[in-house]
């Protein structure tokens, strides 16, 4: 197999190309903006669901940083771990494996602006791969502080 061209070896370029493609696919796998809008829930909608006595209450899972969770989280939500890590994803699967696949689940993070969040897309993908059909992802445009705490929605702190 000829892997040379006029300018010299092309193998390094091929390797660089493959690595770049891997990086791009890795970034795309985490891209929160690729989550279909039908699977999103706004902070306002979620606050209404939590306040309404008649609404079905979701299982709330925080799939981001523990330091941020300790400072402020949605009351009743459970800390799972960063879904961008293998241990976080394992913890997520373990937490939900025994639940009915129709269970209403809301996942959220809020560590970073939406398009930079490394966690929610992977968590959403994992739940859908397990067959969960009633999963919503909290759309946090900027961060949890600006889009939830500062809006005056319910907050708890601690572990």
């Amino acid at each position, binding site marked *: 197999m000829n892997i040379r061209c006029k300018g010299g070896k092309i193998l390094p370029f091929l390797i660089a190309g493959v690595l770049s493609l891997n990086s791009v696919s890795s970034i795309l796998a985490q891209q929160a903006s690729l989550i279909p809008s039908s699977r999103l829930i706004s902070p306002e909608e979620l606050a209404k669901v939590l306040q309404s006595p008649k609404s079905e209450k979701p299982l709330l899972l925080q799939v981001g940083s523990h330091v941020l969770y300790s*400072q402020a989280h949605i009351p009743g939500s459970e800390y799972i771990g960063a879904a961008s890590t293998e241990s976080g994803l394992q913890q997520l699967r373990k937490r939900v494996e025994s639940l009915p696949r129709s269970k209403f689940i809301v996942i959220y993070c809020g560590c*970073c602006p939406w398009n930079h969040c*490394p966690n929610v897309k992977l968590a959403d993908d994992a739940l859908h791969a397990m067959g969960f059909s009633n999963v919503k992802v909290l759309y946090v445009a900027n961060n949890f502080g*600006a889009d939830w705490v500062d809006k005056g929605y319910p907050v708890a*702190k601690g572990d």
Partner: protein
Amino acid sequence: MNRKKLLIGAIAIAVAIGIYRVERSPHALRPAAHGTPAPDFSLPQLNDERLQLSAYRGKVVLLDFWATWCDPCREEIPRFVDLQRKYGGQGFQIIGVSMDDGPQPVRDFYQRFKMNYPVVMGNAKLGELYGGILGLPVAFLVGRDGRIHARHIGATDISVLEKEIVSLLQNKASPTQPGS
């Protein structure tokens, strides 16, 4: 019967409102205000030596809350390394506060990006001291007097930050005493 239902409904709404109010953070997180002293702290660095913020009184300090998993934070690091190299000799010091859950990824990152300023491991208590660090990155610029002069939320415009640093470096006023 209808009255009874109305009454139950009204009670349920009142209880829901009550719960909502109680659950709202009783200690609303307030951002550390401009002009107020930067809250002091002593935290372990990546090499386990402790770093005390007040030991840097007299320098202009950029306190950068970041994490290795945060894209905008990572993008800022090489620029911060440049700023530290450029202004370190004039009394400028960057202190990174990692909000990662553990130090190992931070140590790896520190080596890989050849970071030239100290990094401490932050925690929820420190975040609350600074008004709640509930999104990253967040950077506080602290003057030679130990007071907060600027707070940048999200990716920082480096040119704006550099102007602020230069301006604060030019202020040679002797540092005020803690608590003043």
